[in-house]
């Protein structure tokens, strides 16, 4: 299954609570881009980006840098918001399907 963990103590620079790179196993552009777009809209987030370093490796690197607050909290909020977006879409779609 999916596993995600923090990449720490690397050359990425000063990794602290405010800026972190997360590595997602078995994820790609589908989740990466959606999550990036959600998180980069947060006012507390200074930078958010993702990359799939090599197409043959199913890994996705996800970087968050914040002005305030922990990067991991931004990631959690991003995942929660994305889930809510799914719920809203599902709700509206089913509602429309039932009435058509």
């Amino acid at each position: 299954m999916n596993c995600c963990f923090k990449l720490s103590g690397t050359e990425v620079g000063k990794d602290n609570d405010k800026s972190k790179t997360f590595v997602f196993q078995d994820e790609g552009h589908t989740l990466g881009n959606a999550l990036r777009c959600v998180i980069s809209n947060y006012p507390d987030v200074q930078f958010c980006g993702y990359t799939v370093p090599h197409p043959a490796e199913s890994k996705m690197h996800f970087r968050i840098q914040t002005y305030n607050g922990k990067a991991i909290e931004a990631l959690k909020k991003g995942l929660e918001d994305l889930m809510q977006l799914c719920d809203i879409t599902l709700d509206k779609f089913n509602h429309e399907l039932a009435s058509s």
Partner: protein
Amino acid sequence: MTMESPLAEQKPRIVLQEYKLAQTAPIAKDHFTVKSFKKSFKIVIIRNEQNEMEFDMIGIHPFLVNAFRRLILSDVPTMSIEKVYISNNTSVIQDEVLAHRLGLVPLKADPRLFDYKEDASAESNENDSLEFELKIKCTYNKEANKKDSSRAEDMYKNNNVYSRHIKWLPVGNQKERFKESEVGPIDDNILLAKMRPGHELDLKLVAVKGCGRDHAKFSPVATVFYRLLPDVKLTRPVEGEAALRLQSCFSPGVIGIRHEKDGKRVAYVDNARYDTCSRNAFRHDDIKDAVVATKIPDHFVFTIESVGALRPDVIFTEAITILKNKCAALLEELESTG
């Protein structure tokens, strides 16, 4: 007759100019929030048929639409033939080519009723696989060929092997769980091999659940795509021969011709929805100033073309559920590792 400026709209538009795309207003860099999405997002279903569906998603960002498209293509599972055990194949088609062809045959079994096979080499069971057999032999058709025809269909029996010759072998309790009509190839007339008298096939086929990321045969759709809703407006009346020329510049149905009482033919915009956004009108100097073709940047026309295993609306809801479950699983993992 004056027409209002087609660009005096509230919403920003993408304008198709002769050599470039332009925007009427910079797309507002609004702070996208769940709340604002809930308020502005709208779905309108245009068409919902057995295998094809078209609906509009209005007030949504491209990242979500694209995520849904990618999910449908490569994450929504279906059942497909994965293993072919060949006991006998004396036909001219090679074993591996035949096996590949069989793998691509779409099956109508509902993938939601099956589990993923945990280990590819493990023994298959009633919950994760479907078994089929294909046993067929080509012979001379002596009695029926009285016409002395030289057509292969008259001379031989079973000279063409079709997907309808695939027979389902229920495993365990599958006989009670499924009807014969619920499993098997979606189409009966898929040509699998050609044979001549003496040629014989004896195969056992095992279908498993998989997703499009592993192999395109598992993809539930022929295609799924989205486009921005086009809009065509006329800035001044176009009459006579120019009207017909204008009509031919667009896809059929976009520009209509109205016959006025005095015999004039006047062009009007009939239905811009299915315009393919070609810029042909710019080839004619006399009419290129008469039309403005635009696209609405937050109005997506989403089309799902199902292969047939799942209804297109089911495919869409499945895709969203998969994304949601993905997020939930990751959240849980984050919580547990801190």
